[in-house]
């Protein structure tokens, strides 16, 4: 159409749309590249761990029996925290962890869906009955952190939280059995 302004010629519209679409493509590629880059260099992963465990027999024996819960330092220096998320508390209610050292936290639920985060850290995971939830992290600041249950688990959900004590190396002393408990304050 000869009376259509130049900017609204069909070819021009097509060109601007394609140009913008190219820009959108760059944006999408950039977002994804950032994710891939952090995955390859600093190993950022979502907390996946397809490890099945029977919620009904958790308390009987094995890793998540009551006596095994809490922080344990093994002979080779690995620090493992095991905790239970249940209606309506975390067991143990206080977890001691060392600062500036890799810690593996393992959670299981004997009943319903729970979830947790630790304030000020990158620890955030759902606890799905039937699976062991596992997070690897390093706590960089000492002090007391809040670990609430952040997924609706029933009427007592609002009162369900634990404390994480991040201890400096000189205060993080395992007992003879490798166990570390929270400092009494």
């Amino acid at each position, binding site marked *: 159409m000869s009376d259509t302004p130049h900017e609204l010629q069909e070819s021009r519209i097509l060109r601007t749309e394609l140009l913008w679409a190219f820009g959108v493509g760059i944006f999408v590629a950039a977002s994804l590249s950032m994710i891939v880059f952090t995955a390859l260099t600093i190993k950022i992963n979502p907390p996946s761990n397809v490890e099945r465990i029977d919620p009904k027999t958790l308390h009987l024996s094995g890793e998540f029996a009551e006596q095994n819960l809490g922080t344990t330092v093994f002979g080779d220096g690995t620090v493992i925290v095991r905790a239970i998320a249940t209606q309506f508390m975390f067991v143990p209610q206080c977890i001691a962890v060392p600062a500036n050292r890799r810690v593996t936290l393992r959670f299981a639920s004997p009943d319903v869906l729970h979830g947790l985060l630790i304030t000020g850290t990158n620890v955030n995971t759902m606890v799905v009955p039937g699976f062991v939830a596992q997070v690897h992290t390093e706590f960089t600041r000492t002090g007391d952190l809040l670990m609430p249950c952040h997924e609706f688990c029933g009427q007592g959900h*609002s009162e*369900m939280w634990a404390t994480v004590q991040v201890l400096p190396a000189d205060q993080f002393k395992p007992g003879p059995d490798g166990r570390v408990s929270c400092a009494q304050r």
Partner: protein
Amino acid sequence: MTDQRPEQSDPHVLDQPWRIWSTIAVMGIVLVGILLGVIVIPVVQGRSAGIDAFTAICRALGILPGSPAVPQFTDRTPPTPVSQVVWNSDVLRILARADVAKGKAKVQEVCIACHGEKGVSVAPQYPHLAGQSGAAIYKQLHDYRTGSRVNPQMADIAKALDESVIADVAAYYAGQPQRNLNPVTLAESKPAIIQLVELGDPHRNIPPCAACHRAGAGGPIEAPVLAEQGDEYLVQQLKLYASGQRRNDVYGRMRLIASRLTDDEIKGLAAYYRAGFR
């Protein structure tokens, strides 16, 4: 408007490039995703952690547990459990098929002496069982059998009962009607106690009692009904939990809660439930 040659306005001709290019684009995108997510990222991550490529890929798919970037911890130490009761389909089926008549016969033979025929106990140190949750009675009897809950009288009695009889007795008492006491009005109860029951205390990590002990709350299966229970018995049990002498609550929840209640609160809660509040 650009002129269109006749064959270009035939939709089939117009359409084919769309079909081809859109399929290529969409398939290309998802295949890049699969390549990156399932192969490239896990293999590269595994390399610096000393994890071989095959294991890393299996972990990325979820066929093996663990992360492709971190060695997986494996250690199993089996210690003694606090309660042997497992709520699986078999147990629930046994409870559902319980025979109330057989339960009544066993009650008249054994339990009636302390717990009464209708579930109203003969002395304050024995708990009322009328209208109690069948699952709760089942668990306590089971725990007496295995020694998870310590009581010399009940241990001998429970050891003489087998699995299905325990379920029958539980079903019988569960079916006994409660007395439906008329509780004093809420206005006469202490507000602090009502608050503990309805709201708990987030500061002390104490969930509302009602969140587990009210019927239909969706809490643990074995949570007992507290309404109309004798207050002397309730106080005694809370104190046993607080000191750790009673330890058959799975994962120590009642031990933790009871150890954080004050003596006044323990007395107040016992009175609240004895009065018949639900």
